[in-house]
C-alpha cells in the first residue's frame, strides 16, 4: 500500500478553524472601531489644514524669551539627574530583593511588588498624584521619575541578577562568607557593567520624560511648553520643541557613548 505524500505544517491552534476565526474576529473589531470612533476623512482633512495654520504661525521660532526656556531646560536636567541618582540608590536594593536567585521568597514577593507598582502607572498618572501630594513644581516631577526608576531600573537589573553565573556566587558562599559579602563579591561584580549602563540609559529616558510631565504641573520644560501652548505663542512653542529635540538628542548621544565605553 502506498501512502500519499501529503504533509501540512502542524497548526499552532488546538483546532484548525481557530486561526482563520481569529483573523476574522480581529478584522471585525477594527471595522467596528473605525465606525464607532467616527473616523472620517473630511474631519482629518480639516484638521490637517488647521495644523498648517499652527505651523505657519510657529515660524520663525522665537527665542526672545530664552531665559524662560533656559530655566525650564535646567530644571528638567536637574529633575532627570537627581531622580536618576535617587532611582539607582533605591533601585539596586529593590532589584536584589526582586531577583529570585538571591532573595528568599517573602523578600522576593515584596521586591516584585515594588517593581510592579513602579511599572503599573504611566509617569503622567504618577505625576498627577504626586502634584496633588507635594504641590506644583519640580519636586513632584523628580519624585515621579524616581518612582518610574523603581519600576524600570529595578526590573531590568533584577532580570540581569537572575542570569548571573551561579558558580561564582557559590564559590564565594563556600568560603563561609555572609549574605552581604556574597552579594558584594559574588553578585555585584557580575552586574556592575549593567548597573552603569542602566543608570546612563535611565538618565536619558528621564530627560525625555521630564519634558512631558511638566504639562500636569510637575516642573521642568514641560511646564514652559504647556504655558506657551495655552497662550497660543506657537513661535515660542517651536523654539522650546527645537531645544527639547537638541537636548534629548544630546542625552541619547551621551548615553550611547557611555554604554559603549563600559561594554
Amino acid at each position: 500500500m502506498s501512502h500519499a505524500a501529503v504533509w501540512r505544517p502542524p497548526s499552532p491552534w488546538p483546532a484548525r478553524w481557530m486561526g482563520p476565526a481569529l483573523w476574522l474576529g480581529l478584522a471585525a473589531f477594527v471595522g467596528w472601531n473605525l465606525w464607532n470612533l467616527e473616523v472620517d476623512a473630511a474631519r482629518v482633512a480639516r484638521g490637517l489644514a488647521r495644523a498648517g495654520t499652527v505651523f505657519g504661525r510657529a515660524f520663525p521660532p522665537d527665542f526672545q524669551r530664552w531665559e524662560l526656556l533656559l530655566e525650564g531646560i535646567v530644571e528638567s536636567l536637574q529633575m532627570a539627574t537627581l531622580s536618576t541618582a535617587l532611582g539607582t540608590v533605591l533601585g539596586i536594593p529593590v532589584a536584589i530583593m526582586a531577583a529570585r536567585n538571591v532573595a528568599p521568597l517573602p523578600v522576593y514577593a515584596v521586591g516584585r511588588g515594588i517593581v510592579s507598582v513602579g511599572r503599573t502607572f504611566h509617569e503622567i498618572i504618577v505625576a498627577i498624584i504626586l502634584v496633588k501630594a507635594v504641590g506644583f513644581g519640580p519636586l513632584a516631577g523628580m519624585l515621579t521619575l524616581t518612582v518610574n526608576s523603581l519600576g524600570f531600573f529595578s526590573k531590568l537589573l533584577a532580570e540581569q541578577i537572575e542570569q548571573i553565573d551561579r558558580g561564582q556566587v557559590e564559590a564565594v558562599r563556600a568560603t563561609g562568607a555572609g549574605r552581604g559579602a556574597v552579594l558584594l563579591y559574588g553578585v555585584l561584580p557580575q552586574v556592575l557593567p549593567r548597573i552603569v549602563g542602566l543608570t546612563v540609559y535611565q538618565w536619558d529616558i528621564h530627560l525625555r520624560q521630564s519634558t512631558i510631565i511638566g504639562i500636569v504641573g510637575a516642573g521642568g520644560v514641560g511646564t514652559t511648553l504647556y504655558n506657551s501652548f495655552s497662550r497660543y505663542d506657537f513661535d515660542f512653542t517651536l523654539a522650546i520643541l527645537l531645544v527639547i529635540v537638541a537636548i534629548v538628542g544630546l542625552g541619547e548621544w551621551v548615553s550611547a557613548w557611555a554604554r559603549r565605553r563600559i561594554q
Partner: protein
Amino acid sequence: MLEVSALAKRYPTGDEALRGVSLTVADDEVVFVIGPSGAGKSTLIRCINRLVEPDAGSITLDGIELTTLPPAELRRARRQMGMIFQEFNLVERLTVMENVLSGRLGYVGLWKAWRRRFPPEDMAMAFATLRRVGLEGMENKRADALSGGQRQRVGIARALVQRPKILLVDEPTSSLDPKTSEAVMALITELAVEARIPALINIHDVPLARRFAQRIIGLGAGRVVFEGPPAALDRAALGVIYGGAGEELEGALA
C-alpha cells in the same frame, strides 16, 4: 578528621545521587574519589559543605556534626573547608587579589570587605600564597584575563588562604589540558601535604588518581564500591567501579 556515614541524597528530579556513602579522611591524608559520571562524586563533596543539602546520614569535621548546623554556624563551619571547583568559579570581573582575598570573607566585616581593607596578616598570607602557587606579580590582573591553569591556581590560593581544616576538591583538572592538569594536581597534593591539610579530591582521570593518591575510593551509582591504596586499583577493581568497562580502561594501569 572528616567522617561521613550513611550519607544519602535524592534530587527532586528523582535521581538518587548517594545511597548510603560512608568514608573517613584522616588528618594529613589525601584521598581521591573516582567513578563514572553520575556516580555521585560531586554531590558527595557538595553535601559536605552543604552547597547541596543531604537527605540522610551524618558528616562530622573534627567531631562537629555539619548536617544539622543552623545558618550562622554553617557559615562558620564553611570557613574551615576550602573548596576547589571544576570550572574554577573565580569571580571573573574581580582581580586575582580580590579573588584570593574572598577566601577571608568569613573573617572580615562587610564595610571592610566593601572597601577592600583586609587585615595586614591576611594580605601577607595572600601574597605568600600567590607566590607559592606561582602567580607572583599577577595580583592586579583580572581573573578573566588568565589562562585555565592560572585560574585554577587562583582557585587553589583562594581555598588555601581560608586556612581550612580540609580541602574539598571537585574535578579540579577536567577543564584543563593534560600537561596543565598534571601540574595543577601536583600542586594541590603538594600543598595539602605541606600545609598538613587533609584533602578529598574528586577526579575523572584514573592515572592522575593513581599517581597522586594515598588512598582511593571508588564510587558507583551512589555507593562506595572500592576502597584501597593506588596499588590495589587493578583491572578487576576498575571493572567494578566503571561497570565492566575495565578492559577499555586498561591503559590507565600503564
